[in-house]
């Protein structure tokens, strides 16, 4: 296949989700099945037609269990992507490749996670000390918030990024969640005072710089563009897809290369825009991975919405709000809707291009969705 052959070759035709809550009674497997069946129903496609699956390596439900529970037929493509939330958009990318090359015809991507009622991953000291953990964890750099806090302080020092900039990010997400009845923070407004007086988690990051802890599941259905035209919903095309692992990158403890503040977003962005018919200035709405507020300024720089070091300043003047330069995370995102490793950013991108978001950007026709920054990552450009 020629370069660019994936452009608009496939589309998302179904999305599904469970409720989001701190604790849900059902198992991850049951939640996964509910989300997947809802997505297939949304698409108007029988579960028996599903022949491709993609998810995250951290996903604890697998294709075997899911396929037999939902009544899938012969499955001919299955894939799991690593690096936690960095894999979210890559699940779509892998399915797009499989469908476009004929390895599968109906692909399902999913994420089911009981992060709200389960243990925090960093408390498992057995898995948290591989290389390069021996160089960081013993010194008390234990959690993702500590690792990203270190990069955040440096960004503040080099570029004048402030806690007010991070507040702008948290507030935009919270404001959108306040419009979204499905969001965990639907009825919980945020003020600057509540943000500035919140307890610290890893100074310079406070409680509201950290994403939620959520039980929930989501799924999306991908088919060829040709088939998409016959589906129940307006197709949302995968215009460009990319993964990114930069040279000499070290994951969330990216302290050991020449330029620790330019991360995987830069690599994914170069590949993403290279294949696209439009650029950052043409994006109507963005869903940017927000496990931590500082990932937004870093991603705004990486994906080319502003210059190097300008990510903090970009958030000023309501830029991230509806009507601003770049409305983001219009369901509330991981900070205020639900944290399910970024899959709700994908489904919200689809809703925006269908015109059905609870915080609809008028006439949205293009949407960037990104996966976790600070880890090997991925991104997609959606268009209607």
């Amino acid at each position, binding site marked *: 296949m020629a370069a660019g052959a994936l452009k608009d070759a496939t589309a998302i035709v179904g999305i599904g989700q469970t409720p989001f809550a701190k604790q849900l009674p059902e198992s991850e497997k049951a939640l996964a099945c509910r989300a997947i069946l809802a997505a297939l129903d949304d698409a108007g496609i029988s579960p028996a037609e599903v022949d491709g699956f993609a998810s995250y390596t951290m996903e604890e439900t697998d294709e075997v269990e899911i396929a037999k529970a939902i009544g899938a037929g012969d499955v001919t493509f299955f894939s799991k992507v690593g690096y936690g939330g960095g894999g979210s958009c890559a699940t779509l990318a892998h399915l797009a490749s499989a469908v476009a090359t004929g390895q599968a015809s109906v692909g399902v991507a999913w994420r089911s996670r009981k992060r709200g009622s389960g243990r925090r991953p960093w408390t498992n000291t057995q898995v948290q000390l591989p290389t390069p*953990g021996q160089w960081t964890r*013993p010194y*008390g750099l234990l*959690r993702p*918030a500590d690792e990203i806090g*270190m990069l955040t302080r440096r960004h503040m020092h080099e570029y004048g990024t402030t806690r007010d900039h991070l507040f702008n990010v948290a507030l935009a997400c919270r404001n959108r969640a306040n419009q979204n009845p499905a969001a965990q923070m639907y009825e919980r407004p945020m003020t600057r005072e509540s943000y500035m007086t919140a307890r610290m988690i890893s100074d310079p990051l406070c409680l509201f710089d950290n994403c939620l802890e959520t039980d929930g599941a989501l799924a999306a259905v991908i088919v060829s563009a040709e088939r998409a035209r016959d589906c129940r919903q307006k197709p949302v095309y995968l215009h460009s897809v990319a993964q990114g692992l930069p040279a000499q990158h070290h994951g969330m403890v990216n*302290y*050991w290369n020449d330029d620790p503040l330019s991360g995987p977003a830069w690599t994914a962005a170069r590949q993403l825009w290279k294949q696209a018919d439009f650029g950052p200035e043409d994006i109507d709405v963005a869903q940017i991975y927000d496990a931590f507020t500082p990932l937004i300024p870093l991603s705004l720089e990486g994906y080319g919405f502003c210059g190097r070091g300008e990510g903090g300043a970009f958030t000023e003047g309501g830029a991230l709000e509806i009507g601003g330069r770049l409305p983001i995370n219009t369901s509330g995102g991981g900070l205020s809707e639900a944290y399910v490793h970024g899959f709700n950013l994908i489904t919200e991108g689809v809703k925006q291009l269908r015109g059905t978001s609870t915080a609809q950007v008028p006439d949205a026709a293009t949407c960037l969705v990104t996966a976790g920054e600070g880890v090997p990552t991925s991104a997609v450009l959606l268009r209607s």
Partner: protein
Amino acid sequence: MTSSDLLAPVVDDDGAPFWEYTAQHELRVQACANPECGELRFPPRPCCPHCRSFDSEWRRMSGKGRIWSYVFPHPPLLPAYAEMAPYNAIVVELADAPRIRLVGNLVTEAGAPWNSVDPSRLKIGARVQVVFARIGEFTMPQWVLER
């Protein structure tokens, strides 16, 4: 500090020499042993990303550096760390090789608690010097402000 409950480094083949040298109170960083190359690299790895040589040596550093960044972790933390919180964790760029950065803790003297330095004294760019402290089975590099 209740050092027995702190996490010990889980050492791999590539990193083992680092800890053998810290036990002798020497701060050494892996370097390419190809005489045409000689580049330092961290974290340690099997071959040189510049020239792909598998020959390496451990080059002694002066132990001087500057604070590149820092955080103050607050709970929730593992119990032994929560007892000290908020403590500092710092990244130090080495004076001998500014692209080589080490994570550590700033203390008033070798073996002092990680919360022993007044937080207002932590500044990016502050000059620091390595010291060594036995914590459990390992000798850990720590950092003190240069006098």
